[in-house]
């Protein structure tokens, strides 16, 4: 029995250590955080430039702005908030709220003919 218990404890320790190492392997260095912040700043500058440059095709303006907004949103959520490498339950808790909001308010806006106008 004691051998079994010892083996169990050892296995637990190994599993914990592997999980510990696995989570730490996803940790981002401070230097990389600065690079991500610079990327976000560049995207913001591109957004502003797209609206200020009169030669930018007007049909592409809104899709381009929405795309850059979405990229910035998911970069912050994934890397600054560490959701990319976090537990599935945390992802579910946040994304269910986000998806619910997008679906619900898309229906509301459609009902009020927002997209038609």
């Amino acid at each position, binding site marked *: 029995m004691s051998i079994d218990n010892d083996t169990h404890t050892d296995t637990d320790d190994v599993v914990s250590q592997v999980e510990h190492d696995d989570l730490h392997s996803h940790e981002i260095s401070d230097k990389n955080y600065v690079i991500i912040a610079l990327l976000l700043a560049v995207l913001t500058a591109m*957004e502003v430039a797209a609206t200020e440059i009169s030669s930018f095709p007007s049909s592409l303006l809104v899709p381009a702005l929405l795309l850059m907004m979405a990229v910035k949103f998911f970069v*912050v959520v994934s890397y600054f908030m560490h959701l990319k490498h976090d537990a599935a339950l945390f992802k579910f808790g*946040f994304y269910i709220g986000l998806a619910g909001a997008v679906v619900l308010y898309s229906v509301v*806006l459609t009902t009020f003919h927002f997209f038609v106008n």
Partner: protein
Amino acid sequence: MSDTTIEQPATPEPEMEIPAGYDDGQDHIGLPHHTTTGLSNTKLAMWLFLGSECLLFGGLISTYMLYRNRQGDAIGPDQLWDIPFTSATSFILLMSSLTMVLAVSAAKRKDERGTRLWLTVTALLGGLFLAGQVYEFTVFYREGLGYTTSLFSSSFYTLTGFHGVHVAVGIIMLLSLVGMLAKGRVLGDKAETVEMIGLYWHFVDVVWIVIFTLVYLIPA
């Protein structure tokens, strides 16, 4: 009646049972928590709260989108926006997310001085953003855009005002945490406490990313 005191047999203090999810002050970063899910209950609650906040801000943003052109003869968004100024305040808030993540990183390294420094810088940047928003509101009011001037103005002030209140609450939490860390009054896992406030702060930032594009940049 004689006063007789019955001596109670000395009973040992019952051992406190540590409830699930309670943190014992040890560093559990990357290790399973003692909860039914094996995850931190505090963190789960924070993510669920942020998920519900998506619904709150989704409602406010949708209302603004519906009413953005309903200003009648009153002043409208195209005559008001000062994009270079709002871009500068957006940049400040974006950089506050960087300083916040550096605070979390310092907390995980147990660098308390660095944690307090980055948290203070984050609060200052948040304060700067808020000052910019107050200035912007003042300018708009002087231009003739009151809260009840039009449906556009009401929905605009409600949306950006709600966001501003979230920033203000975040600043209060940041400064309180700095004070509590300085006095050693943070119980439990310090890194996790810093991370929770960080999650809230980053969320305030992502909401502004959406507001900045949908309200200020996309033409009405």
